[in-house]
């Protein structure tokens, strides 16, 4: 298999340091006769190493935005570059490769495969990415140890607590060493204790130089981010950088 996308990337992913570059992004859902304009022209640039929290009321379009950033969906209009790569016009397979190589997802409901062990769940993206068996195993174990689950490698999701499951999900998101980690309400299904564990982990990742975009209602989580982007009715209304 060849991976044409990887060819254009250099050391820091892009020439200008922008991991995400969105210009005039619109998204219209066409459900029969009714057209719903979820995003009306998003301008968003995220640089390497940023920790961005996307906040806003329900139905404001934050999840849609996250799906677009993660290439789970394609915008109706506007231009989107991820790691210097234009997403428009990519076919399904190419989008799948972008998701596999550049993006790591963390979901509110974890989305682990119940029949697989923690280790196999972390291996999954590497399986799709064509990483060899031994390398896959080595890296999966390494990532699980990094999220302090080195002793839960052979456990199934049903044998883990919510916080542990989310940490497995984070290890999985990091498995392919993506340009960016995307999290959709990562603490939404967790109790306060587990939630703060996950928050610390995310902050830790930021500290290691990773780029994070987190959609959240959770004010405590948002405050940990270096930058808060507020979305309302499909538009960016405020974009504040915390004073370090």
């Amino acid at each position: 298999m060849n991976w044409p996308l990887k060819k254009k990337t250099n050391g820091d992913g892009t020439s200008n340091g922008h991991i995400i570059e969105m210009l005039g992004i619109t998204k219209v859902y066409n459900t029969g006769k009714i057209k719903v304009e979820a995003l009306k022209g998003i301008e968003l640039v995220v640089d390497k190493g940023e920790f961005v929290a996307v906040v806003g009321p329900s139905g404001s379009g934050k999840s849609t935005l996250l799906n677009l950033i993660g290439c789970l969906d394609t915008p109706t209009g506007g231009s989107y570059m991820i790691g210097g790569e234009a997403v428009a016009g990519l076919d399904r397979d190419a989008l799948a490769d972008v998701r596999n190589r550049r993006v790591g997802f963390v979901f509110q409901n974890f989305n682990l495969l119940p029949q697989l062990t923690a280790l196999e769940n972390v291996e999954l993206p590497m399986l799709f990415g064509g990483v060899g068996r031994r390398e896959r195993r080595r890296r999966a174990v390494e990532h699980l140890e990094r999220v302090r689950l080195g002793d839960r490698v052979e456990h199934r999701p049903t044998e883990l607590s919510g916080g542990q499951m989310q940490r497995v999900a984070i290890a999985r998101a990091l498995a392919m060493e993506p340009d960016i980690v995307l999290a959709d309400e990562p603490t939404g299904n967790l109790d306060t204790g587990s939630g703060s564990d996950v928050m610390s982990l995310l902050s830790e990742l930021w500290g290691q130089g990773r780029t994070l975009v987190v959609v959240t209602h959770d004010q405590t989580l948002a405050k940990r981010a270096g930058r808060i982007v507020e979305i309302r009715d499909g538009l960016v209304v405020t974009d504040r950088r915390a004073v370090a």
Partner: protein
Amino acid sequence: MTSFGSFLRQLGRDLWSQKLRTFLTAFGIIWGTVAVSLLLAFGNGLHRHMIKTTAGLGDRIVIAWTMRTSMIFEGLGKGRRMRMTEEDIEYLKAQVPLIAGISGEYSENLIARFGDRQRSVEVSGVSPAYGPMRNMVPAVGGRFIDQLDVGQRRRVVFVGNELAEDLFGTLDAVGETVMIHGSPFLVVGVLQPKEQDSSYSGRDHSKMIIPESTFRALTGQKYVNNFIYKAPTPDLNKALNEQVRVALSSRLRFHPDDDQAIQVWDTSEMFVFMDAFMLGFTVFLGIMGVLTLVVGGIGVSNIMNVVVEERTREIGIKIALGARGRAILGQFMLETMILTAVGGGVGLAISFAICSIFPTNLEEYVGLPNLSPGLALLTASVLGLVGLVAGYFPARDAARLDPVVAMKL
């Protein structure tokens, strides 16, 4: 593909985690395979049995005998008894080039005696060509009447297998001397057992065959009871029958259009009928079989559809993690193919088992089921095709799922 091993492992686990579903799917395929392969095997067995028993009388031969004329001809009245001698047989052989083999047959009930056993036996005097034409194959260690026997008027006899058992018991008949009509005859061959479902003067297994020259000398009989002949290929039999009648009409002097003087039983017509019948039968069985498999395929397709629905979320997650459509498609196709292959294999094994334990004493009625490798291969490939088609559509649906929607389910 480097990940093929783990791919298979995951597949095995998926299938194992849904034992009932897997079992039901495989069962449908097994059932279909058993039904199809047994249908075909029994049909094939029956066909072979019918050919065998029909061929027991002879291999597409014509059996002919003389009767009375039914038309006046050149000043001769009708109702004259027609008779044929060995010279007439020789005449036909020389005059009709289409004849591939011909033999007169003289027969009479004679007393055969061996030791203290004495039987009344239908004895026929024939030419060497008679044996192959009537499918009289000598058992190992024996031979049929040959040209030398006829030329030298030897007292040799070829004995039907059941009669041989009756007269000689466990003794090897070949080499023994048996008294026929008061004269000693040397047994030169015993009939290899064969199936025979039609005859004109008793079953071959209870007959004795001696050279026609010897027969005439022994009994004083001058005229043939009947004669048999065949064309090089069965489709020429009709033309040959006509030629034989015309040739005989000039020699025996009866009207060329008189169809009563010579009676003809063309056994190739039985084969024509049988082939037509079996073709219809096989087509019928084939359609039944294909329908069975199609129904099985619909079942598999349905189950795979349910599987896709059940696993929509899982597929969504995999797509979100960067699985290409091909990987999803491949998984489902492979799953179906494995189920089909395993089901088909088990089904074929069961069919083979049933065929091999089929009671042989039923052979006389329906023949032995014959599951040929070709049939098995055909069944397997039809199954593979069914599996492919049955797996493709659910798999395509799965690969096209929108991950955002799929994961929310």
